[in-house]
Every structure is written in structure tokens, then in C-alpha cells.
């Protein structure tokens, strides 16, 4: 940061506004083609889901014993993606980490849409989706209530809470920014931003309550983010199944979630930075820090893989050992090795500072991480079910075209929503960037009085 502090051309508040609000100008036709393409894929996926609801789960590849596979993999993958947003927006906020300011809004937006995408999969996975409300406690004539001892009910509570808190956190952060956008906008946008800004005028009284509410929301979101993926991991770890029944699942899943989530932030931000021309806001310094988080979590995930393997060998449990033998060398062994290559080996390149600031290389590595983390969930979920206690039951699973298209549709849904947000709402927090400038000016005054 020393280089930035020495830079006498510190941007002004106006420069920040100009850079961010420029992104929100009316997009060109290419943007609409992209959004249209995304939502066409969503439409195809929705049509296939309707067909599945009509015909039943027979249209999927789900067969005994593999009754959890692509859909649940997608669910865990998207919940995991969601985690980096809260890490960057809440945890790094509490630590007052300076580099988060330019990237946190994008990460938080990603969180909201990733949880919204993840939340669809338990519904898609249901054979009788119209009974989904059975997961919720409601008064009924037969006194039947959800089983609160079941991890699936914990999951329903955890994911719903996470979705609500993420949405509130994002909305709170947006208020001062949309008030600013309101002042510059005309026509329907002015009405839209005025409604979202809630009549905000930035008085000391408003800031006093706002700052406290935001701080406390960050404080509440921090343990929440750790709990949500722990609860998701317990969907598996609470079962008796070899390959699932493991005490390291909670920290292992949380590290994996942050790993994949930060990689997804990089995957989205690198092209976004170029297409929206926000190179002055998202600098290689930001990406360097994001890359360090990816590297650290990659090492934790690699350590977890090693621990899992060691414990399997050390336990002497023959059934567990067979499950892991199948995982490494069975018919789906290639997936395990793809996962190891993508999650453990390729991220080691990030030890090089030059690669961390080479955005093309970083983007490619982040895509490998995304692929690797999807395979990790598939290997754990479907792989463990396919090789269970009883060898006579062992069977391979192949995803059907319905499952594959719905998976592709989920990516399109996520990217489509993110693209809409990025063009119509401030994708970079103007307020926090301005606060950063104040800090920069102060640093200039202190360390470089002549330059200041």
C-alpha cells in the first residue's frame, strides 16, 4: 500500500462517484443479449423441472442406492459459493481490512444470489415439491411437527436465516449508495432509487443508528457464516454412511466454502472489471489479497483431504477403507484426481506474487478451483452413497439430461441475476470507498505531509 500512499493524485469523492455511477448507465445491446441468453437457459431448466414434477424423479439418474447426487451437489456447491461474500463483507469488516471496500458489494451480491440459487435445489430434489412446506413448523390438526433432531431441519433453518440476513445486510449497505444514485438519476431510475433510499439524507442521527445496526449485523453474520456450512456438512456427517460420518466435516466444509466462494468472486470480478471499465476501482492489489485467501484455504482443504485419508487408514475400519479405495481408484476415481489437481496442486501457483497479480492467470486458476470444488462435493455425496456398507447394492449413477440442464440453468440464473444487479445498482460501495479515501488522505497527512 506504500506505493498508493505516495501517490499524490488521491482520487476525490467525485471521482469515486463518477467511476461507480458510470457503470449504472443504460447498458448496450450486447448486455441484453447476454442477459437474454442466461434467462433462456433458465427457461429451459424451468421447463425440465416442470416435466420432472409432472413425471416424477424417474427422469433423473437417481436410483438406489444413489438418491442424493447432482442436485444435492449443486446445493452444497452454491451454499459454499455464498460464503465468501459474508466473509468479505462481515468478517473483514470487523477486522477493518482496507482492501475489502472495493470488492465487498460484489461478493455480498454474489452471496445473496448464490443462496437464492442453492435454496432452489432442495425443492428441485423433492419428488413432491408441493409438500415442501412440511419442513416448516406450522399448527396442524394431527400435531405433526418437524423433527428438530434432524440435520435436514437444521439446514432449513440455517439456510433460511442466512438468506434473510444476507439480504438485509446487502440492503442496509445499499441505502447511502442508492441515496447518492438518486441525486444523479432521472426518470424511472430516480423513482426506483428514491424508493430504495427510504428518504435517506445522511444526517448525524441517521448515521449514528445506521453504523450501530450495520456493525451488529456484521457481528451476527460472522458466526452465522461459520454455522451455515457446518450445518450443511452435518447433513452428511450425522449419517452413518462411510465417507460421510466424520468429525472433521464442519471445519473442512467451511474452509472449502470460503475457498470456492473467493475463487468465484475472482471469476466474476476479473471480466467485470474489464467490461465495466472499473480498473481504477479494482486494482491488482485487491486481487493479490483475494488470491492469498484462495491460497490459504486451498492449503486447509488439502490438509483436510490428507487428514481424512490418514484417519481412514489409522482407524482400521475395513468398510471405511474400502469406500476410500473406491473413491481414489474406483470407476469415479478420475473425479477425485481432478479434484486434487484443481484444489490442491494448481492453487500452489499462487505462492508466486507475479501470478497473484496476473489477472488472466488468476482467472484461469479460479475457474479450476470452481470445477474442483464441484467435483469435491460430487465425490463426497454420490461417491460415498454408491459404495455403501453392502457391496451387493453398489451401483453407478449417471446424471440425466434433466439434471445436467438444471445445473447449467442454475449457473445461468446466478449469472443473469448478478448481471442485472451489476448494471442497475452500485456494484462497488461508494460510501466505503470514500471512507477509504479519508483514511488515505490521513495517511498522506501523517506520512507524507509535503505531498498532502
Amino acid at each position, binding site marked *: 500500500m506504500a506505493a498508493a500512499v505516495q501517490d499524490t493524485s488521491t482520487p476525490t469523492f467525485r471521482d469515486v462517484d463518477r467511476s461507480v455511477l458510470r457503470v449504472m448507465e443504460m447498458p448496450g445491446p450486447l448486455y441484453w443479449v447476454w442477459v437474454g441468453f442466461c434467462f433462456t437457459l433458465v427457461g429451459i431448466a424451468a421447463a425440465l423441472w416442470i416435466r420432472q414434477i409432472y413425471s416424477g424423479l424417474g427422469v433423473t439418474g437417481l436410483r438406489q442406492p444413489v438418491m442424493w447426487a447432482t442436485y444435492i451437489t449443486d446445493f452444497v456447491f452454491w451454499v459454499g459459493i455464498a460464503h465468501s461474500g459474508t466473509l468479505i463483507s462481515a468478517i473483514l469488516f470487523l477486522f477493518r481490512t482496507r482492501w475489502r471496500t472495493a470488492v465487498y458489494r460484489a461478493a455480498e451480491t454474489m452471496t445473496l444470489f448464490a443462496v437464492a440459487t442453492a435454496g432452489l435445489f432442495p425443492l428441485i430434489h423433492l419428488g413432491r415439491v408441493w409438500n415442501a412446506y412440511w419442513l416448516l413448523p406450522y399448527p396442524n390438526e394431527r400435531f405433526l411437527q418437524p423433527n428438530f433432531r434432524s440435520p435436514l431441519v437444521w439446514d432449513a433453518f440455517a439456510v433460511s436465516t442466512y438468506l434473510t440476513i444476507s439480504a438485509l445486510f446487502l440492503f442496509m449497505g445499499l441505502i447511502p449508495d442508492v441515496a447518492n444514485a438518486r441525486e444523479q438519476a432521472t426518470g424511472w431510475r430516480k423513482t426506483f432509487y428514491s424508493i430504495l433510499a427510504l428518504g435517506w439524507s445522511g444526517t448525524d442521527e441517521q448515521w449514528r443508528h445506521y453504523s450501530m445496526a450495520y456493525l*451488529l449485523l456484521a457481528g451476527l453474520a460472522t458466526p452465522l457464516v461459520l454455522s451455515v456450512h457446518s450445518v450443511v456438512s452435518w447433513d452428511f456427517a450425522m449419517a452413518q454412511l462411510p465417507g460421510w460420518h466424520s468429525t472433521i466435516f464442519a471445519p473442512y466444509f467451511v474452509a472449502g466454502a470460503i475457498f470456492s466462494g473467493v475463487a468465484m468472486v475472482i471469476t466474476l470480478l476479473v471480466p467485470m472489471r474489464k467490461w465495466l471499465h472499473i480498473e481504477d476501482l479494482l486494482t491488482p492489489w485487491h486481487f493479490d489479497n483475494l488470491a492469498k485467501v484462495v491460497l490459504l484455504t486451498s492449503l486447509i482443504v488439502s490438509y483436510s483431504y490428507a487428514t481424512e485419508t490418514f484417519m481412514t487408514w489409522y482407524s482400521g475400519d475395513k468398510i471405511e477403507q474400502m469406500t476410500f479405495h473406491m473413491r481414489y481408484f474406483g470407476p469415479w476415481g478420475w473425479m477425485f484426481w481432478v479434484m486434487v489437481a484443481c484444489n490442491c496442486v494448481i492453487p500452489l501457483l499462487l505462492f508466486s506474487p507475479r501470478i497473484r497479480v496476473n489477472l488472466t492467470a488468476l482467472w484461469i486458476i479460479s475457474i479450476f478451483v470452481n470445477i474442483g470444488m464441484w467435483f469435491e462435493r460430487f465425490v463426497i455425496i454420490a461417491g460415498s452413497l454408491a459404495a455403501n456398507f453392502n457391496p451387493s447394492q453398489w451401483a453407478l449413477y449417471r446424471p440425466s439430461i434433466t439434471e445436467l440442464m438444471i445445473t447449467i440453468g442454475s449457473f445461468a440464473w446466478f449469472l443473469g441475476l448478478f448481471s442485472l444487479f451489476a448494471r442497475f445498482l452500485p456494484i462497488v460501495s461508494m460510501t466505503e470507498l470514500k471512507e477509504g479515501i479519508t483514511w488515505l488522505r490521513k495517511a498522506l497527512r501523517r506520512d507524507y505531509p509535503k505531498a498532502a
Partner: protein
Amino acid sequence: MSGAVQIVGRFADEYACADCIEKLKSVRGAAVKVFSPIPSHHIEHAVGKPRSPVRAFVLTGGILGIVTAIALTVGTSWEWNLVVGGKPIVSWPPFIIIMFELMVLFGGISAVLSFLLNARVPAFEIETGYSSRFSEDRFGVAVRCDEAQSGQVESILNESGAEEIVREAA
């Protein structure tokens, strides 16, 4: 306040703005309202208001969440009190997870609701003295005072480096 006026000073810098607020404390009976595009500790300290009561709302919301979760988990377990798998009817360890989640949920919702309540938003009318620049790049100090004190207020605003001073009917 008979013959009251509102004088708004515009500042380029939060430090000058905070300095001005400190000086305005010498004007008896003047009501000071500050506008700023960013949350500023300097301004907050200069204004000297107590810490926001949002904390109490969040604490209450969190406790209410825990109590609701206890009522929900224990109540519904007793409603259909069939022992399954030898587990106790009231199984505290799994119920703690629901308590935690509802504590966060209720606490978070309380944070937002209490912010709306205390900050008096949504507001259908923007605060008097507000200028669009106060959402962009400038800090504003709006002082409501008697006509007789307006000269003193204006001189403090000038002394503190206000770029522009506007007088409005209060």
C-alpha cells in the same frame, strides 16, 4: 423558537466540519444537524450524542429468538412425545442449533427494524437543509437558532472554513 432561522454551512472536509460543530457548542440554544456522505467518527465525537439504542433492540431480539426456539423445539417435541431411537424427548444439543439460528435471525431483523425506527426512515420528505451534494462529496452543518444569534453562527461557519452558507426559514 420565535423568529427562528436555519443556517446551513457547506464544508469540503470532515475535520473542518467537526471543528465547526465543536465551536457551535458556544451558541446557546442552537440545534445542530449534520449531513455527511460517509459515517465519520470525528463528526460523531463532535456531536457527542450517546451510543445508539439499536444495541438494546438487537439484544432483546436475540433473546426473543432463543426463547422462541426453545418454545418451538421443546413445545413441539412435547406435543408428540414419542421416543424414537432411544433419544430423549427434549434433546438439548440439536435444539441449541435452532436456538442459535433463531437468535441470529431475530437479532438481525431487530437490527434493521430498530435502525428504521430510530433513524425515522422510510421518510417521505427529505430533511430540511439537505442538499444533493451532502450525499456526494460535501459535509453540511445546519443550525437552527434565533434570528438574533444568526450573526454569531454565520461567523463561526465562516471561521471554520465553510465553502458556502445558506440561510433558510426554519
